[in-house]
């Protein structure tokens, strides 16, 4: 009787272990497969792009059609400029909207804002481009860096607002109460306790949003357009890496194809430096909340 139970237990135990191993294997396999496209893309971009990547490429203007050499210096600066404009508009608005959603719980308005922001995040980026084209480009009667930056800002708004909200919500209420009970004003509690505690998470959200807009092409076609000169001001068209890559990639010239690959490599590296760099820099200052 007892022996039988033991034998049964043993069988049971072995089956459980087999199922556990299988589940583990499936999870690990999926994780690896999910990484494969990323690694392939990175490897391929490096492989194709590294040949045309040199100092000239980083610092020179594009060469006229028919001439070899030249670079994407203006597009690199232009992309940084567009990201900067987008961040200047999108970050304060997005973060403050997230603070409103998480900290000032006004049920009706929050519901509307949340719904709209979810819809906005689902709007295809080309439509945002057409929208900004109508609002800014047509009224200013010119394509401009400003219009491009605003289009990108609109694209990053919902991501920044919602991640900020989510991160702030993860801060336990006990900390808000601890602060308020000390006679610390509400705004100060939000700034110095809640936002600071959620800082690492908010920053990650911001970086993801910036990385996403750095590669946007469609909305820029209607707004920032492109340019073969150095950026000449906020109200002038400006070159950007994604648009330049697109233009060069669909051209019939072989050396332009090469440059498009090099441009892709630079874009990928830019995003990488942005996210890894900020993680390293702020990671030391802001430790994630336990």
């Amino acid at each position, binding site marked *: 009787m007892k022996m039988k139970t033991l034998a049964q237990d043993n069988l049971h135990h072995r089956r459980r272990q087999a199922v556990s191993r299988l589940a583990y294997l499936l999870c690990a396999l999926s994780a690896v497969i999910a990484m494969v496209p990323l690694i392939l893309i990175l490897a391929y971009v490096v492989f194709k792009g590294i040949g045309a990547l040199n100092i000239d490429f980083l610092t020179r203007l594009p060469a006229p059609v028919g001439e070899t050499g030249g670079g994407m210096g203006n597009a690199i600066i232009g992309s940084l400029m567009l990201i900067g404009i987008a961040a200047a508009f999108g970050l304060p608005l997005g973060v403050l909207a997230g603070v409103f959603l998480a900290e000032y*719980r006004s049920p009706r308005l929050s519901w509307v804002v949340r719904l709209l922001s979810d819809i906005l995040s689902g709007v295809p980026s080309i439509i945002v481009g057409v929208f900004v084209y109508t609002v800014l480009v047509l009224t200013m009667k010119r394509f401009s860096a400003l219009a491009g930056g605003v289009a990108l800002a609109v694209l990053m708004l919902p991501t920044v607002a919602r991640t900020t909200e989510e991160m702030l919500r993860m801060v*336990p209420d*006990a*900390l*808000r*109460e*601890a*602060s*308020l*009970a*000390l*006679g*610390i*004003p*509400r705004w*100060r*509690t939000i700034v*110095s*306790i809640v936002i*600071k*505690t959620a800082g690492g998470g908010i920053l990650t959200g911001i970086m993801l949003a910036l990385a996403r807009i750095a590669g946007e092409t469609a909305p820029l076609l209607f707004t920032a357009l492109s340019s073969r000169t150095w950026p000449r001001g906020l109200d002038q068209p400006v070159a950007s890496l994604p648009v330049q890559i697109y233009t060069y990639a669909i051209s019939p010239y072989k050396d332009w194809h090469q440059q498009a690959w090099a441009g892709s490599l630079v874009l990928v590296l830019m995003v990488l430096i942005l996210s890894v760099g900020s993680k390293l820099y702020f990671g030391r200052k*802001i*430790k994630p*909340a*336990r």
Partner: protein
Amino acid sequence: MAGSITTNNLSASFGDIRAVEGISIEIPANKVTALIGPSGCGKSTFLRCLNRMHELVPGAHASGEVIWDGKNIYAPEMDATAVRRGIGMVFQKPNPFPLMSVADNVSAGLRLAGVRKNKAAMEEIIERSLRMAALWDEVKNKLGKPGGSLSGGQQQRLCIARALAVEPDVILMDEPCSALDPASTQKIEDTIEELKSDYTIVIVTHNMQQAARVSDFTGFLLTRESGEPGRLVEHGTTSKIFTMPDRKETENYITGRFG
């Protein structure tokens, strides 16, 4: 001399649900007043009305008067932030600020309320507060370490030090030892004993032995039927409540017949 608190017909609700009703009690200055009662009788809610923390819960509302230092803290011209600076609070679960060092936790109330002090004065306040909370000797060599790295009992005393640093008049304690081991509880009770010469203390506890040990006065709250709001059954000196209470319910509770 610290201030006293008197409540007149204080009621508190969450949305449509009444949590406590019609509480009138005098909390004498420089004494320890314990609030006891079974779970859910509203003692914590009542406590949170005394420094206007109750209203922070969405939908929460309080009515009646809380007279502190001659003024009704619910009067329209009273600023909740100023009230909380004068009537500090220690919570059930230790809640030090996780990103701040031990020293910064203590000085947070002053710094973040915009009080400017030079470094030496601030250090003095930090040391004095930690000494009063009986924590100084244990943390004086790790003032720069994060507050969260201390043990549970130390964290709770850190929270007491943090509350003391803003120099309040009254300290409210909401079951401050319920998450702690007996040794830490002992230390906090000793601290309470020390503090009452300078502060008025109100402590909510579900531990009757603790109420008997630390308090001078005791109030007993009870919800008579489920769904009913909690009411103050009786209050008086701790020795009277624990030896010859006037009310049958009190006697039943303190003799352990329910709750």
